[in-house]
């Protein structure tokens, strides 16, 4: 039975042109339809148009969207209000900002119940508590009176789901509900949504740009590109035999976990042309590793003071990095992985001197000052370039600082731009004139200016779309070959790490729990945390999609330690040559 039937939906914005053009699709009751596409392809606008949430003063909407016999696009506001949250629920991308920060969880949940189910007072609260339990939030009763900021991202997203499901809607629209979350948390949320769907028979319109997630949950998939539908079909069929060139390209570009089984060295990503869908395999890379040390971290500890009380005395500390030791070889890529907040960035920043380590050392290969040997590339391409400097000046600045004449430095900047695949003529432009991928190339050029041996790349490609991401990664690998660079590659994307790393270090609560050659970590993970991390990664393969069993709900532990308390030091065990695993207490990791 068709629940929702969208015909020729088009949306255009005053002054900005068409965002969505002639989108048509059908959804049956209880089915999951995924909409995938790059950033800006019109996914969110489609969903907002269906909900009637676009500003009628700026958005022009046309077409038809029959929901249970009524056209959503023709309904007046009161009728839509009747529908929203009742017949159609919605979940948004950002769990951090989607809940009202000044109202309690209980109030926000009860609001929907009061609105649509006529519940009042205690009854509403009791029902809210039941809802929280349904999304498996522990200690639901206490949570009712808490404010959103006290909850972790995963919990908030579960509250959002509880809210959206409060009135057992026929249709749930989920706009990138897991994009902002860690993979382990993402797995939990996907699992939860799936189970709720089973229980209630709700249809889900699932918006995402992650092919792995699509493969895992969608019955059918709709691919959007530049506001148009490129392809639609059964998920399995679509993955197996994509018809549209764009879909083919997209699927080819996606890094897949496990694709490196049996491959010894990092590999370039294939060059994918999204327009034509053609893929050109890349040449194999030589082994860049040399028998020398590039950077050594010894027993590094970085803690942040938390102060409180009348005199602002230190009462607790964030143990962001705890006794970390590792060695980065010359020409080697060491990937640092771990969940959000585990201390990856802090470690990188401590190496760079951006955070002062509480103890420990960073040793370098050469005698040159740190800044000439180690450079950093940051995550956000939009924030890492000074908007008031031309990119040429930005790249030349380090050279000028170290004594080069301005003209010579600018000439060198042009060469560097060329080296990262941009044209030298772009040196005179300002950052806002570049796309995200281009900016990240510029940031890399700047990092290269001082000819460092080591580059610390903190989530350097996380903010980029798939196709752009692979291009930048390829550039980094190329540069490694050309310049013999070593990378400390901080990332949470396991599929990417598998492709480019020589060795991998897994971090948890400020400590390295496992470190070893890439193949060893991916194929024979030892530490329970590593295992969990790997199993949570969604695979862009519908055949294997729902193979995973139920995902245990588990909250991330806090790295905050009260003054005087200490975590016991843990020893490392050697499993194989260069594969070390920290001792663990199995009871802590039992599911």
């Amino acid at each position: 039975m068709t629940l929702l039937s969208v015909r020729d939906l088009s949306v255009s914005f005053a002054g900005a042109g068409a965002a969505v053009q002639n989108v048509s699709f059908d959804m049956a009751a209880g089915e999951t339809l995924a909409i995938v596409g790059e950033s800006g392809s019109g996914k969110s606008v489609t969903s907002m148009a269906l909900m009637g949430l676009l500003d009628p003063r700026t958005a022009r909407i046309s077409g038809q969207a029959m929901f249970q016999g009524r056209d959503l696009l023709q309904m007046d506001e009161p009728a839509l209000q009747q529908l929203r949250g009742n017949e159609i629920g919605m979940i948004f991308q950002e769990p951090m900002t989607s809940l009202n920060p000044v109202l309690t969880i209980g109030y926000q949940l009860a609001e929907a119940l009061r609105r649509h189910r006529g519940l009042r007072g205690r009854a509403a609260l009791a029902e809210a508590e039941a809802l929280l339990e349904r999304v498996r939030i522990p200690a639901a009763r206490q949570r009712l009176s808490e404010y959103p900021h006290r909850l972790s991202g995963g919990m908030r997203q579960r509250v959002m789901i509880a809210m959206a499901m409060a009135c057992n809607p026929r249709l749930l629209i989920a706009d990138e509900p897991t994009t902002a979350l860690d993979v382990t948390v993402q797995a939990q949320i996907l699992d939860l949504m799936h189970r709720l769907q089973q229980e209630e028979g709700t249809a889900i319109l699932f918006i995402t740009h992650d092919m792995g997630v699509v493969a895992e949950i969608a019955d059918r998939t709709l691919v959007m590109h530049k506001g148009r539908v490129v392809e639609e079909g059964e998920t399995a069929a679509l993955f197996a035999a994509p018809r549209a060139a764009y879909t083919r390209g997209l699927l080819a570009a996606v890094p897949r976990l496990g694709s490196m089984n049996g491959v010894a060295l990092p590999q370039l990503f294939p060059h994918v042309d999204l327009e034509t869908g053609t893929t050109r395999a890349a040449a194999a890379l030589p082994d860049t590793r040399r028998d020398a040390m590039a950077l050594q971290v010894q027993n590094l500890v970085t803690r942040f003071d938390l102060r409180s009380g009348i005199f602002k005395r230190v009462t607790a500390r964030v143990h962001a990095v705890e006794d970390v030791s590792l060695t980065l070889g010359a020409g080697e890529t060491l990937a640092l992985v771990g969940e959000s907040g585990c201390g990856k960035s802090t470690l990188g920043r401590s190496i760079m001197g951006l955070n002062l380590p509480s103890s420990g050392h960073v040793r370098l290969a050469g005698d040159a000052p740190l800044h000439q040997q180690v450079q950093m590339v940051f995550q956000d391409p939009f924030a890492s370039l000074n908007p008031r400097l031309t990119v040429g000046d930005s790249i030349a600045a380090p050279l000028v600082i170290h004594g080069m004449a301005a003209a010579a430095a600018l000439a060198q900047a042009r060469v560097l731009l060329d080296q990262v695949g941009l044209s030298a003529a772009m040196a005179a432009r300002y950052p806002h004139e570049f796309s995200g991928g281009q900016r990240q190339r510029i940031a890399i050029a700047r990092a290269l200016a001082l000819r460092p041996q080591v580059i610390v790349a903190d989530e350097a490609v996380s903010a980029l779309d798939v196709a752009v991401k692979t291009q930048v990664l390829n550039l980094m690998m190329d540069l490694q070959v050309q310049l013999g660079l070593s990378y400390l590659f901080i990332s949470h994307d396991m599929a990417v790490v598998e492709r480019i790393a020589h060795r991998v270090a897994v971090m948890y609560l400020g400590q390295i729990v496992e470190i070893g050659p890439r193949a060893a970590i991916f194929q024979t993970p030892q530490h329970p945390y590593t295992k969990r991390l790997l199993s949570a990664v969604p695979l862009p393969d519908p055949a294997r999609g729902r193979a995973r069993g139920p995902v245990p709900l588990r909250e991330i532990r806090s790295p905050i330690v009260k003054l005087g308390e200490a975590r016991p030091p843990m020893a490392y065990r050697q499993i194989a040559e260069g594969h070390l695993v920290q001792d663990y207490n199995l009871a802590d990791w039992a599911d």
Partner: protein
Amino acid sequence: MLAYAIRRVLILVPLVFGMAIAAFCLMLFFPGDPVTVLLGEAAPPEQIALMRDSLGLDLPWLQRLGQYLWGVAQGDLGLSIFQRRPVTTIILERLPATVELAVCAMLIAVVLGLVLGVVAALWRGSAIDLGVMLIAQLGISMPVFWLGIMLVYYFSVTLGWLPAISRGPALVPALGQAVTGDPAPLGTALRHLLLPALSLGVGQAAIIARLVRASVLEVIREDFVRTARAKGLSRPRVMVVHVLSNAMLPIISVIGLRFGVLLAGAVLTEQIFGWPGLGQLAISAVSQRDLPLILGLLLTFGLMFAVVNLIVDLLYGLVDPRITLE
């Protein structure tokens, strides 16, 4: 929370002493002698010397500063040279008038500002929005004292509706009387209060209106508002419960700062409306070179400003659950 409050109060101590030292040093450079002002043009030099001596005005300045700070530490701000009474007494007598004026002006500012700001935000881009914002712009650009004079000219002189000058009965006791059945004093008090409070409050109302509008527009874009709408809540409900509750937060913190501006503005308003508050007192103290009184007033203003901001910050901590006051 309590620790935070205590800490903030403790920080006031060095602040007060810092202000006392700064103000005292300022006083050292004042030309003109309060004693000649007090004793008059006709005073013989011996008498002036005698009085300077009795007031300790000729002691080395460090010693005077020391004595003054010691006094401040004991809550003693010295004697007014002119009124020959303790500065604290004089200030406390005048304080209620200024507070009454400032609080009422702030009330007008907040209520007017909120209403106008929300209206403008709701109909943003429309003629209403444009009109409100234009009025706000005019309100901000208008010199307080000019507005005051114009109000007096129009409402008191031309129309004769409201008293032009002076304070009526004190508001708080008048409120009390109104509660116990005699509304007359309250009426008089309000009639006297209306113009000064209005002229003082309008500029602030304009500023608040703009802030509210900007803040509401900012909050409207927030994801949680979309969430609220996706729940099917009605527009007024979303506006009041979700938008305003958040939009008020930045306004609260601004009110503290505005209150400081308002206290300073009261100097002019009080002058125009003959309002017997601290502002008028300050002007006469400066023109008489009543040094202890000027010092005391500067400290009082500074302290009021600090206390208001403290209250605002604490309030902020109460209203916004994200802020842990530690």
